[in-house]
């Protein structure tokens, strides 16, 4: 029954035009980034290396498919939560707004299973978006720019990773990025259980992400104790796969924090939905 309901939920997602908004927006954005990098990628890279180039010269293909894929991932992981929340934030509240929630609850399926099937359908949609991001960013940028060593700039300096040592990093980075996006999807579904309209959970999800991101980036000691527990702090942990050596302990910690958020948010949603008054 859970599987059938999940299938139904996914069909509902697929039949909504807004679900394609995310895929369309991703395609356009990635196209734009690739076009911009093709036109002026060298000068963008030289902006990064300018400080070093007074003393050193960088030889080889700096602008390549791996760098473009990394830039795309870095740029879009910040914006994709909105595209995800646009669909998942509507999963429960949309039913409440349209009045179909009563019909749904009258089916021979527990409320817990209803919620779980919505979570699974939301997770599948999130996976589709992440895969689309991966396919477009990696395949298209490799087709346009070719392969090469990856130069990554982080707060500790430049890391240059050999071409042969990159693909597995992208694979695992996409997995962790998916977990981050799944946390956002879970948050929006959770907020959706509290709302009666679609806009509220979507806006609230983005507001929470913005507030948490600002708290995380503020260098104020008063927030130091809560920063490690904010899911937004760990949303960029996919980047850690591009450090050398890879800080696996930090990544595992981030995965644990993100999974804890997911479990907690699913728990809260189940608690709320099982007690939700759907008769009025």
């Amino acid at each position, binding site marked *: 029954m859970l599987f059938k309901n999940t299938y139904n939920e996914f069909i509902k997602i697929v039949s909504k035009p807004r679900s394609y908004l995310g895929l369309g927006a991703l395609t356009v954005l990635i196209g734009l980034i690739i076009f911009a990098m093709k036109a002026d990628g060298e000068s963008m890279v030289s902006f990064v290396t300018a400080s070093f180039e007074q003393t050193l010269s960088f030889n080889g293909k700096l602008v390549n498919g791996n760098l473009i894929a990394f830039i795309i991932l870095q740029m879009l992981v910040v914006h994709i939560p909105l595209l995800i929340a646009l669909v998942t934030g509507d999963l429960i509240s949309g039913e409440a707004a349209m009045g179909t929630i009563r019909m749904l609850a009258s089916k021979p399926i527990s409320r817990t299973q209803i919620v779980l099937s919505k979570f699974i359908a939301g997770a599948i949609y999130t996976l589709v978006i992440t895969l689309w991001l991966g396919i477009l960013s990696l395949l298209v940028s490799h087709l346009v720019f070719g392969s090469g060593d990856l130069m990554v700039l982080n707060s500790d*300096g430049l890391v240059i990773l050999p071409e042969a040592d990159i693909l597995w990093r992208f694979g695992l980075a996409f997995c962790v990025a998916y977990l981050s996006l799944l946390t956002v999807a879970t948050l929006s579904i959770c907020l959706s259980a509290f709302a009666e309209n679609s806009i509220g959970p979507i806006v609230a999800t983005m507001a929470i992400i913005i507030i948490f991101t600002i708290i995380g980036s503020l260098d104020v000691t008063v927030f130091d104790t809560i920063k490690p527990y904010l899911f937004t702090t760990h949303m960029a942990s996919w980047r850690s796969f591009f450090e050398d050596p890879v800080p696996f302990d930090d990544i595992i910690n981030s995965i644990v924090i993100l999974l804890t958020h997911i479990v907690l948010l699913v728990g809260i949603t189940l608690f709320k939905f099982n007690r939700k008054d759907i008769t009025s």
Partner: protein
Amino acid sequence: MKKVQNHRKQYFLLFGFLFAAFGGGFAQEPEKVIDKINAKITSVKDYTVNAHIDADIPMIKIMPSNAKIYFKQKDKVKIESKGITILPKQGFTELNTFLSDKSKYSAVFGDSLKINGTDTRLINIIPNAASGEIVLAKIWVDQKNSVIMRSQVTTQTNGTVKTDFKYGSQLRYGLPSELKFEIDVKKFKMPKSVAADINKTSTDPKKAKEKKRTKGTITITLSDYKVNGGLSDAIFKDKKK
């Protein structure tokens, strides 16, 4: 007998005096030493060489890489590599080009120094013009083989670069088998706006210590020289443009 001994003493004293007074004339002047170095350098019309580059630079992490270097007189250099390689901005041709024009500088002998078991003599190269890129150059020369064993070049824009040279099979051409550059990195500043991991604050003491390092080294091991094989100018044209 005593008279003969006195004469001998006088001859020795006279010889010693003459050697002290005119002996300097037999020693080489710094310009002549540089001439010999230049003669070796100009005997190489072109070369290709395989390079293994190992960089240890604060704030940059890069695995050792391989490249092929093409050189053609007077200052054409091309570096071909499959991946990304980092090399010092100066150090391959600038010093040799500068030394080849004697009107641009004055040379003064300095102290002697043993470098890797080889006796060397310091020559200070002082540019005549104040506006040139090179502010001061010091070269430690193996006078026996007429090769530079160490150089320390201070430029207007790139700070000071110290280079240690090791020689192998191409000693007769004055081409090194290993170059070790020591570069000044205190000017490196990370553009925070593009670092992107704004949520991340490094607390690792190792990384903090790494950031405080002001010197970096780049070691280039050169092998399989092909000297005076006749390189076409087309090789040095940038394909991208």
